[in-house]
């Protein structure tokens, strides 16, 4: 018992030595970040569950979000807990040689890590409760969660306990059981290279997705029902492939660098990459998988954005509100006057509606009427009738943007009932919905007072025109429900938030590991400087080693996520425009983040001459 206590005391002291202090500080910060993120996520999930509309969907969404945040947090904590692992393993093996039992050695390792982990937990929890009012004040697309922004007790306990337990487990479990194993010098450069089969899943997944997207070969992928299992298989293989490919990818990348360039800096970087420890590959794999999923999720959200209701809502919120209500010609004037009295109303236009026996609907409107409700019919001539072709408002590659819905195309027709071949469909124009003809007033002449009239009302952008009309007794026919729009907006925000967290936490974990490796390499760096290798060469080597493959990996994962998302959209929504803007932005942010992490490690590598390092072994 006394020996175990002594081992624990020794572990605590090791965590406070000059080199140990930095590691302990890094671990405490990593645990604190993980605590803060997990408690925030748990609180947001609870608010979502208590305020959401569909409990089953919300539960799935909350679980997906919590998992997406928890995985990078776990990787961060476990990575930082294993900083300078080989040096610590050697040290613990030395303690075994002195006579400590395996249990006592583990106690020592646990005490060294546990202290910092507990400090980090305390810091993270305190930060969360201090920041909670600020976080709760953030309103996400109509969701006000001030009342419920606190985690459930069980989630809270899990979020508090998991990071320090993971940290201690990471520090204790990989410990080599035999001292001779741990004391053996690490021959990193001679590790067995990863097998080429790791490329297989990614290649097969890419081919499958490309085939589903192109619909070829037709017997397999042409029919949507047949293509569905292939699509899911392709996307799943892409995800698995990303996890497997990193070591091969890094080696291939390094081999390419060696082949293409002969400069000492790039060669040094490439060789170091080839000898990179597996832990780094795991971090990059998780980072790439996270970006892949976030990019793919962004594409899935596009499927919602491409729906008419979403475009309606976008148009209402950003361009102008347009609704209509029904009345009769006799009551139209009074109703128009009531509508005009509302603040923000721009135009009120009465559009008599006629129905043919064969079921066609026509409105009676002049060119100026159409212009007042902002319906464009090109070169409109009073006296002409027009066939409305609502589908032509949904061209392929429709650019999502404000005001695009006004481009209704109408073509003049002879002043006679249309043939059965006239186009009828659901349009985007509220009062013109289900209308196939626009007839000029001169053609119709005087109408009886009982004629059905649709009164179109336009107002400044917003979401309350329908309720304001209802408040004055005018019940609209085509009021818009913003619930689904808000849900999609929340999804978009969630995707960006999760992508941001994954990117930030992943880059942080990578950065900390890279900095630790450069610190471990200081002696080697000093030796090279003493030989006369200039600081610039060493800095370039460090930057290439840390930044370039990370940037390439993140861009690759964003690209693969885009492929997966595009495949999904090609299956379900073949005409949907792909969110290239968002894709490029995510890739650009990932590249910028990678470059910054590379630069941070260059600073940390500090290729200054330290003669004392040469004698220290």
């Amino acid at each position, binding site marked *: 018992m006394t020996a175990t206590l002594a081992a624990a005391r020794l572990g605590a002291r090791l965590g406070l030595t000059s080199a140990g202090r930095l590691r302990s500080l890094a671990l405490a910060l990593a645990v604190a970040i993980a605590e803060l993120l997990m408690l925030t996520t748990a609180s947001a999930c609870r608010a979502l569950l208590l305020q959401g509309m569909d409990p089953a969907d919300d539960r799935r969404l909350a679980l997906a979000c919590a998992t997406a945040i928890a995985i990078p947090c776990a990787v961060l904590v476990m990575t930082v807990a294993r900083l300078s692992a080989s040096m610590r393993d050697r040290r613990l093996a030395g303690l075994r040689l002195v006579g400590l039992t395996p249990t006592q050695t583990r106690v020592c390792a646990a005490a060294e890590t546990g202290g910092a982990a507990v400090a980090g937990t305390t810091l993270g929890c305190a930060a969360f409760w201090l920041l909670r009012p600020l976080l709760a004040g953030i309103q996400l697309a109509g969701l006000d969660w001030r009342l419920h922004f606190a985690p459930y007790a069980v989630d809270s306990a899990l979020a508090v306990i998991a990071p320090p337990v993971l940290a201690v487990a990471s520090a204790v479990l990989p410990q080599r059981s035999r001292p001779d194993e741990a004391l053996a010098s690490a021959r990193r450069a*001679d590790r067995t290279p990863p097998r080429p089969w790791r490329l297989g899943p990614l290649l097969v997944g890419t081919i499958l997705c490309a085939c589903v997207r192109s619909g070829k070969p037709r017997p397999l992928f042409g029919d949507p029902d047949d293509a569905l299992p292939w699509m899911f298989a392709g996307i799943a293989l892409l995800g698995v492939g990303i996890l497997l490919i990193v070591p091969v990818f890094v080696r291939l990348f390094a081999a390419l660098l060696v082949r293409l360039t002969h400069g000492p800096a790039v060669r040094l970087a490439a060789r170091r990459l080839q000898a990179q420890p597996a832990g780094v590959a795991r971090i990059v794999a998780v980072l790439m998988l996270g970006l892949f999923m976030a990019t793919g999720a962004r594409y899935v959200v596009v499927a919602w954005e491409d729906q008419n209701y979403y475009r309606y809502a976008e148009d209402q919120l950003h361009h102008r509100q347009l609704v209509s209500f029904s009345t009769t010609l006799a009551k139209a004037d009074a109703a128009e006057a009531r509508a005009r009295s509302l603040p923000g109303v721009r135009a009120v236009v009465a559009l008599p509606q006629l129905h043919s026996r064969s079921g066609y609907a026509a409105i009676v409107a002049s060119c100026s009427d159409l212009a007042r409700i902002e319906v464009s019919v090109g070169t409109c001539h009073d006296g002409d009738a027009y066939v409305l072709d609502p589908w032509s408002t949904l061209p392929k590659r429709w650019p999502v943007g404000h005001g695009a819905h006004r481009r209704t195309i109408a073509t003049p027709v002879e002043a006679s009932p249309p043939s059965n071949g006239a186009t009828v469909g659901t349009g985007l124009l509220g009062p013109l919905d289900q209308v196939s003809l626009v007839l000029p007033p001169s053609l119709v002449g005087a109408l009886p007072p009982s004629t059905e009239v649709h009164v179109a009302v336009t107002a400044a952008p917003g979401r309350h025109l329908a309720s304001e009309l209802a408040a004055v007794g005018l019940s609209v026919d085509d009021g818009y429900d913003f619930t689904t729009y808000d849900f999609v907006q929340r999804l978009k925000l969630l995707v960006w938030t999760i992508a941001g967290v994954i990117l930030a936490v992943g880059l942080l974990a990578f950065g900390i590991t890279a900095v630790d490796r450069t610190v471990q390499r200081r002696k080697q760096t000093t030796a090279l400087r003493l030989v006369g290798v*200039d600081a610039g060469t060493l800095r370039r080597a460090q930057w290439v080693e840390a930044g370039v493959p990370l940037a390439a990996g993140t861009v690759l994962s964003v690209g693969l996520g885009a492929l997966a998302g595009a495949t999904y959209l090609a299956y379900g929504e073949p005409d949907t425009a792909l969110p290239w803007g968002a894709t490029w932005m995510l890739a650009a942010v990932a590249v910028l983040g990678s470059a910054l992490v590379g630069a941070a490690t260059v600073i940390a590598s500090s290729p200054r001459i330290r003669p004392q390092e040469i004698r220290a072994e």
Partner: protein
Amino acid sequence: MTALLEARGLRVEYGATVALDAIDLALAAGSRTAVMGPSGSGKSSLVHALAGIVPLSAGEVWLEGGRLDTLSEARRSRARLARMGMVFQFGDLVPELTLVENVMLPLQVLGTRAATARRRAVEVLEQVGVAEVADRRIGAVSGGQAQRAAVARALAHRPAIVLADEPTGALDTVSSEQVMDALTRLSVDQGTALVVVTHDHRVAAHLDDVVVVRDGRISVGIPA
């Protein structure tokens, strides 16, 4: 005759500790000198001062008639790269590079083309007897082979002087002999001056002169 490397009134301090004081030393081209002395006497500090690595509190270091200690760090690095070779106790080769790539590194930094650098590196590795493991990394060769590769790295660019700090300190007797044999043979072949810090009289026996450092001062300079 102008000395190849000369120290005049050197004084080096680390905080309150005086590591070297009143050191005067002149090394001629092609000379072979052992620096001996007890632990902590200042042997390594002397080599580091001669190489322009540590800042001087007083005194001057002259390399081939030019003042070394007043140059900027970048120019001192360049001077070391071009005119000096360094060998350390633990070799300190880059573990991720193969032996031949380690030897190529200073040559390439000097601007030699990769193919030429490789030819020269292989040639020197043959001279020190480790050509057969030239494409292996440090982890896959013995300590003696790695140290001979370090000797090759120090001499590949034909420097005017090689400074070796305990080059055999981590080796067994046989490996020590092989390393010293390679070091002295190559330096003689190339006309390179050699300064070796050592505790070992058997190592010093390979050299022509001995300088004994004690308490930061040269106590005696005698022929070996």
